[in-house]
């Protein structure tokens, strides 16, 4: 078994192969020089807290114990599907019975920023180190993109004492996956902490000068910064799959079992698009930690001959300042929203389809105030439940009771 990509999905798959009793060789190929590590902290605690360090998914001993061969600092450059071999840049070829592509995604680059040496992107631990070095107290930090990466880094930069400006093209923050009511809570938290938020602002030019970078906006404003973090989305790494002639559709196209158009090749995590059974097979691509784990697990089982379908509900979280947001399901599947208060300013929005079915739930509050209810909502979504609106809205109705109903 060969796995290309040693992020969350690939690493999870490697261990899952062993947990499922596979005793043959397992090779895990990683592009970075580091042992596989967790990415979520890169924009959260590890950025905001001094010396938080890297959080390895597993230490070297566990890979050795599990008999997983780690091939680090290595790039897979081609797949010979007929011979079932993956060729590495080093010239080495690895034969496979089944191959998993867990190649992840890379930051979308901003053309205007290509000539700037003060514009930085976040994907890897090494990227995070570069950004961290800029976040000195008093440093002026511009953030282009009011999505999760941009906002989490903006919050971290503020907590480290930087002067932060966030520039977002859309009229509000987090337009892609977050309801306006929740985005508004985050907007307020950032504004209150002193982040200068510019929504509906288009960048027209980015120019480095002696000791900084100037970002010109369409309204005539100019923002001077010591460094500019660009967080405008991610692009799936599909080059290897495309060169091998695999079907690609907003990511490596897989079926509900995570198999690509070649039955010997599977894909999982940020790099693939897949059909979501719970939404009538709607094809999506997710950039989320738990999705990477779930798909890595499932791909491993199916690589060993199981025929299991992907059934997980999309779920993700974000931490900014003392607030934590969690969303289960896809919010845009809903046409109606029911709000439930969760105490101390925390609240949950239940998103219902036209037929009353619960299709998503989003919540925000301090710490883990909404975590348990979002988890229960996720189970209700999986059950395709149609909970009564008044019960969803009533804070004293336990969601667990609705699940049993």
């Amino acid at each position: 078994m060969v796995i290309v990509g040693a992020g969350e999905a690939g690493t999870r798959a490697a261990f899952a192969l062993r947990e499922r009793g596979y005793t043959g060789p397992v090779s895990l190929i990683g592009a970075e020089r580091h042992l596989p590590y967790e990415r979520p902290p890169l924009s959260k605690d590890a950025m905001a807290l001094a010396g938080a360090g890297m959080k390895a998914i597993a230490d070297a001993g566990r890979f050795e114990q599990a008999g997983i061969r780690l091939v680090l600092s290595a790039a897979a450059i081609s797949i010979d599907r007929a011979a079932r071999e993956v060729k590495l840049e080093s010239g080495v070829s690895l034969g496979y019975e089944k191959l998993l592509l867990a190649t992840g995604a890379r930051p979308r680059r901003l053309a205007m920023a290509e000539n700037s040496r003060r514009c930085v992107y976040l994907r890897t631990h090494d990227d995070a180190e570069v950004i961290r070095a800029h976040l000195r107290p008093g440093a002026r930090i511009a953030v282009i993109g009011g999505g999760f990466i941009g906002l989490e880094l903006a919050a971290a930069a503020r907590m480290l004492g930087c002067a932060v400006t966030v520039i977002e093209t859309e009229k509000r923050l987090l337009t892609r996956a977050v309801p306006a009511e929740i985005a508004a809570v985050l907007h307020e938290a950032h504004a209150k902490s002193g982040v200068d938020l510019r929504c509906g602002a288009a960048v027209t030019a980015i120019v480095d000068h002696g000791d900084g970078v100037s970002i010109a906006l369409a309204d005539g404003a100019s923002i001077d910064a010591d460094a500019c973090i660009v967080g405008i989305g991610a692009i799936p790494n599909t080059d290897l799959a495309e060169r091998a002639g695999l079907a690609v559709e907003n990511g490596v196209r897989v079926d509900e079992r995570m198999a690509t158009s070649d039955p010997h090749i599977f894909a999982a995590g940020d790099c693939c698009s897949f059909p979501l059974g719970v939404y009538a097979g709607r094809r999506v691509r997710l950039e989320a930690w738990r999705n990477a784990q779930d798909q890595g697990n499932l791909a491993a089982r199916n690589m060993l001959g199981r025929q299991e379908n992907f059934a997980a509900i999309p779920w993700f979280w974000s931490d900014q300042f003392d607030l934590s947001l969690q969303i289960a399901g896809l919010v845009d599947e809903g046409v109606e929203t029911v709000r439930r208060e969760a105490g101390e300013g925390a609240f949950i929005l239940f998103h219902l389809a036209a037929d009353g079915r619960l299709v998503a739930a989003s919540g925000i509050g301090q710490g883990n105030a909404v975590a348990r209810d979002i988890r229960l909502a996720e189970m209700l979504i999986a059950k395709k439940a149609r909970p009564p609106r008044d019960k969803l809205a009533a804070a004293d109705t336990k969601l667990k009771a609705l699940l049993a109903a």
Partner: protein
Amino acid sequence: MPEWIVACAVDDVDEEDVIRFDHHGRTFAIYRSPEDEFFATDGLCTHEKVHLADGLVMDDIIECPKHNGRFNYKTGAARGAPVCVNLQTYPVKVEAGKVMIEIGGVHG
């Protein structure tokens, strides 16, 4: 030297639920199982130090509110990724409507 301390009243915890209990700078999670038995573990997940009392209890499993790490709260056993380190458990007894836990020694 065993030290039994009162953690909460029996009625403070619903069936198949969990609450947080802090004592002298330590934090614990007190569980009531669907079978109406009480259990106690360390309060923080072994993965990223998140309070388990904000998590969801299902049968004999506590699920971490942050990353869905799962433990059997009766035995402390980690139940798969992302958690791989077991949770410390503590002896529990119920006396006169009070839930008491023993935190003097270390128990597996």
